């Protein structure tokens, strides 16, 4: 899956969405969702290879390995939240978009709580 193909595909999808928007706005939004989903699915193998390379580099460093999984999860949550927010805004539902954003922030906070606990324990250990 080359960069030209994805670009052309997305432009084609955007033009078709523009045509549909005149007549049937819901169909246009659904077409947009489909284009996004198909392009992301096509690019997933590359993301997987990036993640594997990054995990190898991480393993060679002195940091704890479970933090890498945490970072990956955080990136995934951030990415999905951004996607959901933008799609809701495309539909014109800003309130729902804000709700998606808020949920993403909450999930990220919950995810990083153990890290904060470890950090505070380390700091307290150093100070006291």
């Amino acid at each position, binding site marked *: 899956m080359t960069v030209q193909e994805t670009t052309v595909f997305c432009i084609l999808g955007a033009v078709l969405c523009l045509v549909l928007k005149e007549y049937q706005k819901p*169909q246009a939004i659904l077409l947009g969702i489909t284009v996004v989903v198909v392009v992301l699915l096509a690019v997933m193998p590359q993301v997987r290879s990036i993640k594997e390379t990054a995990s190898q580099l991480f393993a060679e460093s002195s940091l704890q390995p479970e933090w890498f999984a945490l970072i990956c999860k955080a990136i995934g949550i951030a990415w999905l939240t951004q996607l959901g927010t933008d799609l809701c805004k495309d539909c014109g539902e800003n309130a729902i978009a804000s709700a998606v954003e808020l949920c993403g922030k909450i999930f990220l906070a919950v995810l990083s709580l153990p890290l904060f606990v470890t950090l505070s324990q380390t700091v307290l250990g150093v100070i006291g």
Partner: protein
Amino acid sequence: MDVDLIFKIAGTGIIVAVLSIVLKKAERDEQAMMTVLAGLIVVLMLVIDQIRELFDTVKAVFGL
């Protein structure tokens, strides 16, 4: 690349739009609305499989 799917959805959308205009001109507004809803449901059914595949892949890659 699933260009077929995109053309299917775009084609369905355009045909549903034309059908609804033709029915509205013939003063059959209820049928027009039903056609629009039916078109939306059909497209949703086509798209839901892809969305599920995407979320499964994201779960696998990011370990969510």
